[in-house]
């Protein structure tokens, strides 16, 4: 069964409430968004003329690849095996974790070093490995911060974005049991020293994947810190874990995607390191892993292929731009979404992969402003898919909703049925309009009746109730035409 590790999206409403009360968090998020968006804008401005056609191309490549996914995966497998990579397939999270565990056991590993990978967060790999008695250390600075804090990442590119410098400093001093300077540079250098030791003792290195290249059987992973290079250079064994959708057909496709993902995600022209892996160490090499494994994970992705619209979800290159632009994410951060994939992409990916019943609030947790669709480098119609999911939940979702959504639908469904019949009759529309205006007028003066009308009290909890001007436009129009006669 496909699942997302540690999912708690059914608590969205209360988790979001907590996040909103956290002023420090919201300040950190707003600053982070401002910075990443202005960097992104600047990076894209330099190639402004080409950007839209690049998006079209990237989207078309991904569309084609998904439509030919079976053949492309088999091609990748054949070529990867030729390169000496051992390819494994995992239908769901559980099998993927078991596979990795077995590889570690075969390698008689005691210590594992990891570089940042969302799919391993999705399947909860660290827990399984730790349960088997292995030491697991996350080596990306942000991931390490989150790991020692006992949290999950709150952003798919910047895992510790919800932390301030002060909170990280506290965490470091507590964990390391010694005083360290408070500036970002010194803290980073402390992390370097601590993690360098972990690299040197690791037996297995685990990475994610950004692109699987079908025609060459190689794969590419991006990073900025150098931790991934270490993860794939020092340990004896390299295990890469990839969602099956990460595939591109041609080596040359990388050019396009590499020119887009850095600009889109972090506002860099390109990420500092782009590592292309074509197999384990070859004879003249003195270093590099002796064994290289690729674990291809489905975990519910194939379910998304059946609908052309929803299939787009799998085009995602995990750049994080939609999180950076999202006005909802800006207020609540990543943890409130209750999934390792938060924000706009998370709100479409999580319910489809983990199941509607686990995350039925997420598709509604959006104002449908469309900013995510505008920035997405592969042109995923996120608002369109949100609407599609909303329809499924509202109209066919009985028995598949969490409690909060079930309550909402109990109120909303009959209300919209009434609304629909009113809106189909001008007479009923006029009468109900007059009633609504009267109620609004009263409500703009007093909150006495709020408790009978839950949406009204909800509105008033953060806003005053707008006072209607008086009369309807149609009445004024009628008076005007009569006067002109």
């Amino acid at each position, binding site marked *: 069964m496909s699942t997302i590790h540690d999912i708690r999206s059914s608590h969205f409403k209360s988790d979001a409430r907590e996040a909103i009360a956290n002023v420090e968090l919201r300040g950190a998020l707003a600053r982070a968004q401002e910075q990443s968006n202005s960097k992104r804008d600047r990076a894209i401005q330099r190639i402004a003329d080409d950007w839209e056609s690049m998006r079209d191309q990237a989207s078309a490549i991904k569309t084609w690849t998904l439509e030919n996914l079976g053949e492309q995966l088999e091609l990748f497998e054949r070529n990867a095996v030729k390169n000496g990579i051992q390819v494994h397939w995992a239908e769901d999270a559980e099998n993927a974790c078991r596979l990795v565990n077995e590889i570690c056991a075969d390698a008689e590993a005691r210590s594992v070093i990891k570089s940042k990978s969302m799919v391993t967060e999705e399947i909860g790999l660290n827990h399984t490995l730790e349960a088997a008695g292995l030491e697991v250390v996350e080596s990306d600075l942000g991931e390490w911060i989150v790991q020692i804090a006992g949290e999950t990442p709150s952003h798919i590119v910047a895992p510790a974005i919800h932390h301030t410098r002060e909170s990280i400093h506290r965490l470091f001093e507590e964990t390391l049991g010694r005083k360290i300077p408070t500036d970002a540079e010194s803290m980073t250098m402390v992390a370097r020293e601590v993690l360098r030791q972990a690299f040197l003792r690791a037996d297995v290195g685990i990475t994610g994947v950004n692109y699987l290249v079908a025609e060459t059987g190689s794969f590419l992973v991006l990073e900025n810190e150098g931790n991934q290079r270490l993860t794939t250079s020092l340990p004896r064994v390299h295990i890469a874990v990839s969602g099956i959708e990460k595939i591109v057909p041609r080596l040359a496709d990388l050019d396009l995607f590499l020119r887009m993902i850095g600009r889109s995600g972090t506002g860099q022209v390109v990420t500092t390191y782009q590592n292309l892996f074509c197999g384990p160490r070859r004879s003249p090499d003195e270093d590099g892993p002796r064994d290289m494994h690729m674990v291809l994970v489905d975990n519910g992705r194939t379910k998304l292929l059946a609908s052309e619209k929803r299939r787009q979800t799998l085009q995602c290159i995990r750049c994080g731009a939609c999180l950076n632009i999202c006005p909802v994410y800006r207020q609540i951060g990543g943890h409130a979404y209750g999934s390792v994939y938060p924000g706009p992409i998370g709100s479409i990916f999580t319910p489809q992969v983990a199941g509607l019943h686990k995350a039925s609030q997420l598709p509604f*947790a959006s104002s449908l402003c469309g900013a995510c669709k505008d920035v997405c480098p592969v042109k995923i119609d996120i608002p369109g898919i949100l609407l599609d999911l909303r329809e499924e939940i509202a109209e066919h979702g009985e028995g598949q909703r969490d409690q909060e959504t079930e309550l909402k639908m109990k109120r909303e469904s009959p209300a919209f049925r009434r609304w629909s019949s009113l*809106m189909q009759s001008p007479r009923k529309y006029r009468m109900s309009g007059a009633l609504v205006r009267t109620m609004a007028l009263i409500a703009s003066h007093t909150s006495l009746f709020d408790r009978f009308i839950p949406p009204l009290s909800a509105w008033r909890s953060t806003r005053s109730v707008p006072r209607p001007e008086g009369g309807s436009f149609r009445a004024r129009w009628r008076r005007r035409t009569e006067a002109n006669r």
Partner: protein
Amino acid sequence: MRVQLFVTCLVDQFRPSVGEATVEILERCGCTVEFDDRQTCCGQPAFNSGHHEEAKAVVARTIDLLAEWLDEGGDAIVCPSGSCSAMIAHSSELLADDPVRSEKARRVAERTWELTQFLIDEMKIDDLESSWKGTITLHDACHGLRDLGIRDQPRRLLAKVKGLEVKECASCDRCCGFGGTFSVNYPLISGAMADDKIEEIDASGVDAVVSGDVSCLMQLEGRLQATNSRVKALHLAQLLVERDAGS
């Protein structure tokens, strides 16, 4: 030019003066304005909440009505809301099961404009000889901006208003947090989103925040009032119609 005003339910019931201002502006541009009072709603509230069956019935009816008017020789349908105009633009997709209706919806969409889009792109008029003394900032309503590409049109119209100063806010294109039923399902998030904008608007020292959608304006106004701000929320039509007014 025969213009049908698609007034929208919110303007009809809550802000009729926006409808009146729209009529006056259109007449100033030489249009003959008509209004079919069988109009109700574009169907968006139900559509955006996932209740597509309920939405379809309403959308189909609205499309029939507007298509009929076009068939009788009407030229253009104009709407003082980017959001409702965008809904009309999406209608043919929603009605795809019913090919005849869907085709009708496509025809209606082709002849439907949001007000500022109509004035600038269709009528090629940017000077409405209006005047308004004061300072305002714009809020680009999401659906107009992203579904219909309305960004320059209101700015060009406002540039010609005598006595008016427009101060741009960096957050002008960030969502106000309304989002239909989102605003009552998640009032805290919705309110926080409004706050985020209002902070900047307040600090900019403007007299009013101006937008092309009444829904956003009610959200912003509701929050501005709740926080005792002196900034007003005005629809573009209400400002553009003025020939001699100030804050």
